[in-house]
């Protein structure tokens, strides 16, 4: 097989670069450029303070992504558990000595940048779960005792992130992990049991929610109950979206955004601004772009000839999907307000880094798609 000859770990850097899925990279750049123009609009036609800095971050991010893509997938697999443990350690440190921002303890300050270990955990958890299920046969997956370790893998960071408190990230971690469990072949009925158990635990869980989280849920159920208080964001967001109509009010012509009725328009509510200025056409267009990224991500995942790569791909694409869905559903008032940014568009470095690292891994899966790895980790070729 001539293919095999190409796709050995011994490929040169130049050969690997040729194998990167460039169309996928272009789609990412296209999405990011839409984000930059929205940030330009949000600043009333200024590159400062958002667009220019976001562009710099994106450039750094793309380089990091390409670098990750070139690293052999087996190396990522080898260090998966180590990454996980380090990230878990960082989460513990945040718990003890993190910086408080927006009422939650999330950051570790490192002088030049702030590290948010919960974001890193989104990647590390996918890697370590993928490695665990790579090593498990179909029969193993069928045995409930075999699921104890991966469940613990999820439970530990989830508990820590929930304590920060960051409900959005916790949900993202649990759901992305769920996708890996699902594609790894865990029996359907077990999901059913989990689902029922979750519903049953809800009244108990409600007690542990913070006041502001309870308020968000209540506000979601009836935003008009307090139109100037907690319901304000979502009402204004719906007004902005609705008033955009089919074709929108035009670039930089959004009244809700530019007259500051719309809160946080450069971060969590940037989709609203886009849909106000470009209408449903703009909104559907962006969704189509996201859809394409997901389709290519899905295709790259399916082509991998090793379970680890496939599971990593499923985890990453699902994480990406969850970002998109949760953010857009939130700004449209379909789900409660949770602080999840719109991938590649919202202003902010942390989420962008997480995603570009994730896409780096996805590209690595693609570049090294023909490497077969035994359940124990050695090359099978």
């Amino acid at each position, binding site marked *: 097989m001539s293919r095999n000859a190409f796709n050995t770990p011994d490929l040169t850097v130049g050969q690997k670069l040729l194998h990167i899925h460039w169309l996928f990279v272009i789609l990412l750049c296209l999405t990011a450029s839409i984000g930059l123009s929205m940030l330009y609009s949000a600043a009333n036609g200024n590159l400062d303070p958002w667009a220019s800095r976001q562009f710099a971050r994106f450039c750094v991010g793309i380089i990091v992504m390409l670098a990750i893509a070139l690293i052999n997938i087996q190396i990522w697999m080898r260090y998966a558990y180590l990454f996980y443990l380090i990230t878990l350690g960082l989460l513990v440190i945040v718990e003890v000595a993190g910086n408080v921002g927006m009422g939650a303890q999330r950051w570790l300050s490192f002088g030049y940048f702030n590290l948010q270990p919960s974001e890193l955990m989104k990647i590390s958890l996918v890697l370590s779960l993928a490695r665990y299920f790579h090593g498990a046969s179909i029969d193993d997956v069928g045995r409930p005792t075999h699921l104890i370790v991966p469940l613990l893998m999820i439970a530990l960071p989830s508990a820590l992130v929930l304590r920060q408190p960051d409900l959005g990230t916790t949900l993202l971690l649990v759901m992305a992990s769920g996708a890996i469990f699902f594609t790894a072949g865990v029996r359907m009925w077990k999901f059913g049991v989990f689902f029922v158990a979750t519903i049953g635990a809800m009244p108990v869980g409600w007690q542990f929610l913070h006041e502001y989280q309870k308020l968000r849920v209540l506000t979601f159920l009836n935003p008009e109950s307090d139109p100037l208080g907690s319901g304000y964001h979502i009402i204004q967001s719906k007004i902005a979206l609705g008033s*955009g109509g089919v074709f929108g009010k035009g670039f930089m012509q959004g009244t809700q955004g530019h007259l500051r009725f719309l809160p946080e328009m450069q971060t969590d509510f940037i989709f609203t601004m886009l849909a106000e200025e470009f209408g449903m056409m703009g909104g559907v267009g962006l969704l189509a772009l996201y859809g394409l990224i997901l389709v290519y991500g899905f295709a790259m995942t399916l082509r991998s000839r090793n379970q680890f790569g496939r599971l990593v791909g499923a985890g990453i694409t699902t994480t990406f999907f969850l970002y998109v869905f949760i953010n857009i*559903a939130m700004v449209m008032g379909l789900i409660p307000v949770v602080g999840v940014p719109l991938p590649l568009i919202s202003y902010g470095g942390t989420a962008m880094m997480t995603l570009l690292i994730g896409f780096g891994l996805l590209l690595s899966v693609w570049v090294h798609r023909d490497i077969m790895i035994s359940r124990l980790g050695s090359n099978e070729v």
Partner: protein
Amino acid sequence: MHRDTERHKLFTRRALMLAGGKSVLMAALIGRMYYLQVIEADRYRTLADENRINLRLLAPRRGRIVDRFGLPVADNQQNYRVLLISENTRDTEYTLDVLAQIISISPAERRRTIRGIKRNRSFVPVTIRENLGWQEVSRIEVNAPDLPGIFIDVGQSRSYLYGADTAHVLGYVAAVSAKELTGDPLLELPGFRIGKAGIEKVHDKALRGSSGSSQVEVNAFGRVIRELSRNEGQPGAEVAVTLDLGLQRTISKRLEGKSASVVVIDVRTGDILSMVSTPGYDPNAFNRGLKTAEWKSLTSNPMSPLINKSIAGRYPPASTFKMVVLLAALEKGVITPSTKFFCNGHIELGGSKFHCWKKHGHGTVDAKMAITQSCDVYFYEIAKRTGIDRISAMANRLGLGVKTGIDLPGEKTGLIPTKKWKRGALDLPWHQGETLHAGIGQGYVLATPLQLAVMTAHIANGGISITPRLTKFVNKQVADKKNDPALLQKSLGINKAHMTLVQESMSEVVNNRVIGTAKRSRIKELGMEMAGKTGTAQVRRISKVERDRGVIKNKDLPWKERDHALFVGFAPIHDPRYAIAVVVEHGGAGSSVAAPIAHDVLVAAQRRNSIGTSADTNDKNQRQHSVGINKTIESL
């Protein structure tokens, strides 16, 4: 290998299911987008506009009030205010320090300004001081470069140019009270003023005008981004009153220190040329907002400065009522002009004595002599023969006991008693003695100065019905065409010969240099001579003991117990145009107190030619004529 292929297949199957699930969720997002942006788009578009568009009312300029010659009496004054926008200053405290070196700022004003700045967003202007003088304004303008964030704003405030002189007629404007809110948003504008009394109240709607509006785009913090559209509205209409400002002020000055009322009326049209009630008050103070102490001193003053005595003061007309009694008697035919009665100083009825003001009597008097000397006995006799109900009917026809219909709020009806009235109001039968009291304008009889002026005007014009009015024009148009007095020439239906007799008798009162009760107030100027009737209204009972001992002189009584001095009259005799009523509360005798005032006022009115600019050529000729006479007199 085999196991892995199986795993791969399972993965592919599961991954496709997952992708399917994601597709469904994506489709849900698009569906939601369709719902919001297509189905509900119109609703949200309206909501977005409601968010960003603010409708601001622009208060219209209140219409001016001018006198009959077009001289402004109530106007709007530029009110210069100095304001500060804190976001435009580098340092608010420093800027205030600099400003304080240019104009004086009291610590209280400074404190209020700082509080205002803290309470509002930084782009909201805060007033530092109002009512700046012109010098202060120019000093601030010159120093503008050193005063960033400071600017001058011009507002409008109502100003009554002649203060107390016109206060009772014009009324005043003041802030809208909660009870007066009608839902008209204009009334809710901060600082908006509405008419609370007088002409300001009667013509409030017209004077107010209609509000303009400005549509502005605001951001979420209320900052105005730009103006989208502007509608200036309609400024208030100008109202011309029938007053002759010059005459009004002359009278006001003449009455200084007295609690009195003078009404001057055009006997042909009913135009009120002057209506003065003293003491007055400063209507500008109401606009500014009264202090408690000011309010207390106004309400506790025994001379009641807040009351317009001309329409709301009710006084016994006393002898000024005798013309009514005479006309009623003549009409009933109980006497003829030549019927004579003998006055020996009193008349007895049912065991009571009714006294004439002249202790030893007037001797034999006919109608003209009775009016000239104001013989009470003569009127006791004819009142007794005429009966109260006929007297009352005549009084009503002449304008007493009924509202005159003047265009001012708060007019009082006065009281003209009838038998029926007494039974209804007091549940008592009428006594003939009460008819005698009414015959000399005492007892139950009460009239307002305006009613007395209208009565006199009716006599002076020979019995043509008039309605007194204060509004000449609203926005240069006759306010109420139907009631334009120039077009109405309705007769009261009183015998012309009787009227002439009464007019002649009234002339004798002033011009009979021997026995006329008002002979000392005769107008000597040729062509300006007046006719009239004095009245002295008793406000206390004189007991028999006192009468025997000698009635106490007015000046020895406390103010509240002194007689009211009255005089009604008209001029010129040869072609009456002006009718007047003078009432001086507790002023003493009509002949010595009220008649001289009437003399001065009627001379002034004719000299000024208060009726003036009539299109009637007769009027013009007459004016030239009277001016000629004035010159002759002056040259003498």
